[in-house]
């Protein structure tokens, strides 16, 4: 039971943690295809510390910065842009704490090079706020106590947001598969299901953002 089938269409409802690494075939290709890359444009790098200039659109704001080609999007968000809502949990694509939306799809920022993310719309947990107001998924997580220590929570909420953007009326089964790429060691999964269900209901009734 530990290993469930990867979701059939990663582009529709995001990445499952184990599905991602478990299916180095069509699934992984779909994941790669989901991120528009500028691989052709990257010059050959000989020194890993040689900097490349890129522009990243994060939460609607354009940032121009110099990056090492090996820097992940997670590193650039947290350490260069100071956007620390996105958490570092494993830095190898296994826990989901660093989930961000890239063009509306949940992605692991630790497995995405900053270079790759150029030209995309990146949304972090902070981007789901409306000024100081919580977004509807954030509100649902707060009201349903869908967290304990809260460390995985930004990633969980971003994953839920991505799921609802792709599938506004998910079934319980689809919610569980959509959220299965994000670990919560505190084990708040029951409350996460409650929160996502509630957020989906609210959005269908027109109350969402």
């Amino acid at each position, binding site marked *: *039971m530990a290993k469930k089938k990867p979701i059939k269409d990663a582009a529709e409802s995001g990445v499952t943690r184990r599905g991602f690494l478990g299916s180095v075939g069509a699934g992984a290709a779909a994941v790669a295809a989901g991120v528009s890359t500028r691989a052709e444009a990257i010059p050959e790098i000989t020194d890993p510390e040689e900097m490349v200039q890129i522009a990243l659109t994060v939460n609607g704001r354009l940032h121009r910065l110099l990056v090492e080609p090996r820097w992940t999007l997670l590193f650039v968000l947290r350490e260069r842009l100071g956007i620390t809502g996105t958490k570092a949990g494993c830095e190898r694509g296994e*826990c989901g704490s660093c989930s961000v939306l890239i063009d509306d799809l949940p992605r692991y920022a630790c497995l995405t090079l900053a270079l790759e993310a150029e030209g995309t719309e990146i949304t972090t947990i902070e981007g789901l706020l409306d000024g100081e107001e919580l977004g509807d998924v954030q509100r649902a997580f707060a009201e349903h*106590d869908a967290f304990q*220590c*809260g460390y*995985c929570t930004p990633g969980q909420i971003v994953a839920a947001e991505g799921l609802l953007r792709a599938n506004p009326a998910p079934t319980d089964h689809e919610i569980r598969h959509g959220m299965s790429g994000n*670990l919560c*060691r505190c084990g708040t999964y029951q*409350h996460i299901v409650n929160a996502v269900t509630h957020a989906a209901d609210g959005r269908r009734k027109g109350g969402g953002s």
Partner: protein
Amino acid sequence: MTDRHDYHVNGPLPETPDNDATAGAWPKTTVIGSRRSRVDAYERVSGTAVYPHDVSLPGMLHGAILRCPHAHAKVLSIDTTAAEKMAGVHAVITRATPGTDIPWYERGGTFSSTLFDATCRYAGEEVAAVAAETPLQAADAVRAIEVTYEVLPFVIDDAEALAPGAPAVHDGGNMVGEPRLRERGDLAAGFGEADAVVERTYRTECQIHAPMEPHGSVARWDGNRLTVWDSTQGVFPVQETLARVFALPMSNIRVIGHYMGGGFGAKLETGKYTVMAAIMARMTARPVKIFLPREDCFTATGNRPANTMTIKIGARSDGTLTAIDYHSLGAAGAYAYGADTSSLAVYLYRCPNLRAEDVTVYTNAGKARPMRAPGFPQGAWALEQAMNELAAKVGIDPIAFRLQNLATELQSDPPMPYTSYQLAACLENGAAAFGWQEAAERRVTEGDIRRGVGAAACFWGYAGGPPSTVVVKLFADGSANLNLGASDIGTGTKTWAAMIVAEELGVPVDRIQVENADTATGQYATPSGGSKTVPSDSPAVLAAAAAVKRQLLGFAAEQLEVEPGDLEIRDGEVVSRSDGEKHLAVTAVEMLGRRGLIMGTGYRDPNPEGSVTFPCAAQFCEVEVDTRTGEIRILRFLGAHDSGRVLNRLTFDNQVFGGMAMGIGLGVTEERVLDRRTGRMVNANFHDYKVPTILDVADSHACLAIDVPDEAFNSTGTKGLGEPATIPTAAAIANAVADALGIRVTAAPLTPRAILEAVGSQGKEA
């Protein structure tokens, strides 16, 4: 330099005479017991909460640690020349660096070790550390350090560690102290009386805490003052340890832990990484941040040890237990915390004849640390499976069999009463709420998909106590500030504390500011562990609120010209009970306005003498087992929990479900795998070490709160919850799987492979 780990103190305490014995005797509650979202929910869901891992300071360097790749080796030489010359590197420290010869793990008379020890006793032990401008530069530099090791023979298996000629983890053999032996009655006579006896050996594997926030700290010096942001379960022991390490007064050390991303016991000790960050910060005059890579969190920050437990248990044909013989062996790794598991066997059921022995051995592996109810889930795995097997043998329903044999007092010599112990209600009401009989009738024991039900019971052998100090301040506008020392490790500490103040003072929860977990600005609390934060600290919160209330009512009584005892606070007003005409808004109490605020201090009273307090629980589950794939699907789980008075029903449920998730990990998915040839952990990552996902927990989780205040224990009537929530889970699953398959799998985790092997052997055994 390990911490002084005092969860609570015995003996006299200088309690304040202000503690109000009548506080908390609420005739009815409006806030306490309700479902409240957390006072820090906004910060946690918006991304604005600053966890230690998020702390970034001007000029901050990033640290990385070099670890020994061998399970057992002597460090012969370390060459840091290349690393020191690398771009961005500011400091490299090893055992040769002055100031690093800091005593660390020791066991009186047996062995002592240092921060960077000359001998590495497990694969993952610290050898050197680097601070550099970026994390990648630090990691690069660590790889450039050249170490010559003399590789030594090692032992990683618990049974092999005791064999003659086994490699010695420490001088003086591999036994950790003396075996713990507990006996009562006459074992042989007890088995002589038994009409039915079962005997089996059970096994649980090593489980890793794996909190989502990695272990780590940020250290900054200002002259000889040190500030540390630490992902810890308790800031005060870290402060004390750092003060000793650097020979500074505690007032020079400030440890801040406002937020932390989970611990489960692994963050109850001061990390070597914290000290290394502080040493390198001092050398470089720059703040240093060390957060461990996930792999190191798996290998080097502690675990629940693997245990092998043999239990022989007998009963008369009428179902009365007559004898229990229990033996446990645990591998505690290189620096033992302990691996005892026998407490449930000793105390859960009434049994006059008992022998229980716990043996713990050193192995060349990552160290055992307290993990969510240390020893108890393992003990439940053995005892509660054996109880089911014995119940079947004497032909009694497993719930009824447990109820018949429940111990109602502590079987010590002499016996001690429990203050409040609602385990019978947990079993009876829990079975009713779960629909035990109906579920049992749905049992499917043939075909590809089998279905079964299982239950298990437990207590948790700790309930906290003093010391704890809390301060509550009432501002002139009727809002309040609450200051407590305890870390909120995800358990909702800040929220229930605010709810107590709201209940006692009538201040709405959203008008209470909560400060916590800061050694410089906070009150004192012991670390958050042992399921004791609520029962240890909530009485102090209540006493502080009551102290404010007493002063406020005193001032109001003068103004209204009534006796203070005639006054109560209702909806923001001070009201006379006897004369409804006499009332006053809290904000209209003149002395409050003149003074600016009213401050109350509360202390935790000593525990009552001559009694013992345990939270307890029973959990029930229904599972499907696919005999073709070996997969277990957990259809539903119900936890019936007696933790005394429920403070916040929403977070109470959440704790229960979270405990179950961790228990599902122990029972079904999680297992540290060590390579027998190298002694290294081969699954030190979240892909191969399977923390349960949302697809692995039950399709639905339910919680039944027994909610009987334990008024004999403390002023809030509370006991703990976090640990009992995970104790019976794995055993309940095992019982359900055995119910479905008609065969018992004795070794955790119940992986598809283990299930298929059991199913495959079924025909042969019959």
